């Protein structure tokens, strides 16, 4: 059997076993099972890196000439992505062993985590659009289940619903896009999709496919679900809503662009994608500067970085985007797990203004968190620096406006990350929980350390392994305008953070009108609420009228009333219970029948 198939089967088996056999009674076994399953898949993924195994494919559905296969495509892109998914997946599993130790529904958590691993593997390995779409929806489902893990909380249930519905909006476009691509290229298989020349409607099809990425990777205007998704357990945020699932949009776009060929992609579509990425990146970075919840800050930071990747894709340089995806996955997972450790130590306190001084009390967490921050803020020779530089290069070459936006975002990133660092980890403890915080147990510390190591080493690891060639377009320090801009952005951001937040007890910018705009996320949620209310009420009123008047009153009600009236007529006048009446009708019937038979 193809060992790549095992990648799909093992997590599925684990999910089924946990959900149906182990349940809550054997939660510990479920946790171990999920973790071991992920360990095995990581092993397989690593072994695939050096092997030259080819994918396989078998027919799943046939409709006329149209075949849908369940197939596996093994190339640099999917092999590398598998390592990221299973590697971070394993570390998150291990971290969860500690973080979710006392959870009431631990088995459900690990079962859903296994389901997610299965779905994500499916997306990465899919060799055609239909299969990818199926797993695309499955990750949506598992994301929904995991965000709503603590469904007893209204906010968690609402966040899960919001995530699911926002994704549905994007997926609708995605589905139409897939159909259009099928119509244009005549195939849904990635390998057979290459176009020699641009065709009409290709631009629209590309944008529609991109709709799927907008939903899944939380780009403007569907970004609203990702910050709310932080209601889920923190390890889930690290795995799904930072490192892997939200990056699936970028991965899908990269896979798509590689398949149809860079040359045929219409400029207008590509520029639109790039601008959506750039604007998302900037808006999210601005919002992140005024958040108080440690996970929300990281969520907006994720949004911002995803914007970077989408921008890279839109600049028709998916390699840069994928490289950033690769490095970002490690250090953002690190940051999230670090925040998880902090939250765990502070008894589920998430407000950074109630923390402080944690660096000394939690040295491992503190150090790894600082490493993650340095990577994210693109300090030279960290992974983030190299990957961000690739994107800046791409922007610098083809779109100066986006280049300036990207540099601004880089400065803002530094600003809000050091704001977080100064307030939560340095200074005085501002709350009792923070004052008594202790270092997390080993089972949580080890994943942090490994992730810290990976955050720093990932570019060189990528370079060392031939199969990961896609992931290191450029590593090295050359003094040119891009590098200088990147370093300058870091310095400006750091300086601003030091000036405003070093040693502060409360936010000095909280009363600034502009900052309040950022704090309230540009009122996008409120605008959506009003928009939905207007539309929903109007449509609901129309539908209600049609339903009540036409369907209920005339169609359903009218028909029943006719039937009822006729029935009553016969019931009252014919079904009288009087024998003579029946005899009269019998006679009349006989007359009519004789008339028809004899005289007609």
């Amino acid at each position, binding site marked *: 059997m193809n060992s790549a198939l095992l990648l799909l089967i093992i997590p599925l088996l684990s999910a089924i076993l946990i959900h149906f056999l182990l349940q809550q009674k054997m939660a510990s076994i479920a946790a171990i099972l999920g973790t071991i399953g992920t360990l095995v898949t990581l092993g397989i993924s690593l072994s695939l890196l050096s092997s030259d195994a080819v994918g396989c494919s078998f027919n799943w559905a046939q409709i006329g000439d149209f075949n849908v296969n369940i197939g596996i495509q093994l190339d640099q892109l999917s092999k590398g992505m598998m390592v990221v998914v299973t590697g971070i997946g394993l570390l998150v599993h291990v971290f969860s062993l500690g973080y979710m130790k006392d959870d009431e529904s631990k088995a459900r958590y690990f079962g859903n985590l296994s389901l997610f691993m299965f779905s994500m593997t499916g997306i990465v390995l899919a060799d055609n659009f239909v299969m990818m779409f199926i797993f695309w929806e499955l990750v949506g489902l598992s994301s929904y289940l995991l965000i709503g893990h603590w469904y007893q909380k209204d906010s968690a249930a609402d966040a899960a619903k919001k995530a699911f519905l926002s994704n549905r909006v994007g997926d609708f476009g995605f589905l139409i896009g897939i159909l259009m691509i099928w119509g244009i290229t005549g195939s849904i298989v990635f390998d057979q999709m290459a176009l020699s020349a641009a065709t009409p409607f290709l631009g629209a099809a590309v944008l529609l496919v991109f709709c799927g990425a907008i939903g899944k990777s939380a780009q403007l205007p569907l970004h609203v679900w990702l910050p709310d998704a932080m209601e889920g357990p923190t390890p889930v945020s690290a795995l799904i809503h930072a490192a892997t699932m939200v990056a699936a949009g970028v991965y899908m776009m990269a896979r798509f662009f590689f398949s149809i060929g860079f040359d045929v992609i219409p400029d207008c579509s590509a520029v639109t994608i790039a601008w959506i990425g750039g604007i998302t990146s900037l808006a999210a970075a601005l919002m992140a500067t005024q958040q108080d919840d440690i996970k929300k800050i990281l969520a907006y930071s994720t949004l911002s970085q995803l914007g970077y990747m989408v921008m890279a894709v839109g600049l028709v340089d998916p390699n840069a985007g994928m490289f950033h995806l690769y490095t970002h996955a490690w250090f953002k997972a690190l940051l999230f797990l670090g925040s998880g450790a902090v939250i765990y130590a502070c008894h589920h306190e998430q407000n950074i203004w109630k923390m402080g001084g944690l660096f000394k009390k939690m040295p491992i967490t503190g150090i790894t968190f600082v490493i993650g921050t340095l990577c994210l803020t693109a300090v030279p020779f960290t992974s983030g620096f190299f990957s961000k530089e690739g994107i800046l290069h791409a922007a610098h070459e083809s779109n100066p406006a986006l280049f300036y936006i990207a540099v601004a975002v880089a400065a803002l990133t530094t600003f809000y990350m050091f704001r977080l660092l100064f307030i939560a980890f340095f200074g005085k403890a501002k709350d009792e929980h923070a004052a008594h915080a202790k270092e997390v147990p080993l089972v949580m510390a080890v994943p942090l350390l490994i992730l810290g190591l990976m955050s720093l080493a990932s570019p060189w690891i990528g370079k060392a392994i031939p199969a990961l060639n896609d992931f290191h377009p450029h590593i090295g320090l050359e003094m040119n305008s891009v590098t200088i801009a990147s370093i300058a952005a870091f310095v400006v951001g750091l300086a601003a953070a030091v000036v405003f937040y070093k040693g502060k007890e409360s936010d000095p910018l909280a009363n600034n009108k502009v900052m309040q705009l950022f704090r309230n996320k540009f009122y996008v949620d409120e605008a959506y609420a009003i928009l939905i209310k207007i539309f929903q009420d109007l449509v609901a009123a129309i539908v209600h009228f049609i339903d009540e008047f036409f369907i209920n009153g005339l169609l359903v009600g009218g028909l029943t009333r006719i039937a009822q009236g006729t029935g009553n007529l016969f019931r009252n006048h014919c079904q009288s219970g009087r024998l*003579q009446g029946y005899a*009269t009708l019998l*006679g009349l019937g*006989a*007359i009519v029948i*004789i*008339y028809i038979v*004899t005289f007609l």
Partner: protein
Amino acid sequence: MPTILFYLFALIMIGGGIGVVALKNPVSSALSMIVSFIGLAALFVGLNAYFVGILQILVYTGAVMVLFLFIIMLLDLKKEEEKQFSSSSIAAGVVIPTLLVLQLIAVFQTSDFGNFQAITPESLAMSEQQLDPSIPADSVIRSSMAAENLADRKLPDVNLIGHKLFNEYNLPLQIIAVLLLVATVGCVALSKKLKAKS
């Protein structure tokens, strides 16, 4: 049957029928019905169906109508009270049968059946010769009383009915026997007083 006799017995039959409908006392109705059935039996005889005519008088007039009378007496039914029949039911009861009869007349207008073949000693003699070219000489009918009667130029009514009944209609006869048994059991079951549940 001579036309005059036909009309006489038909009049008795129809008159009896009208009596059944018109007379208010159930006993009178039952008695008119007997009269009507006697007229009917006479018409059967006029159709050379002697056995059936006698059966009609024996079974219907003798047994069934007596049963009716017995039940009427048993239930001690009085004359129907003086209240008039409702005009609507009388109207329906007149119009619908009239329509039926009119339709019947219309059918007769379009068809002409002609007369009966007469059955006389001469015709019976001819029948005997034509009777059964296909029936072998040792067949039952050749040696039976039917053949003898026919040879005597008499209509072998009962012989032929018996022959037909026990040969061609044997299975229906058995089934009818079962039906009668079931009816008997049913009557007993229905007439039995239900024991009060205690």
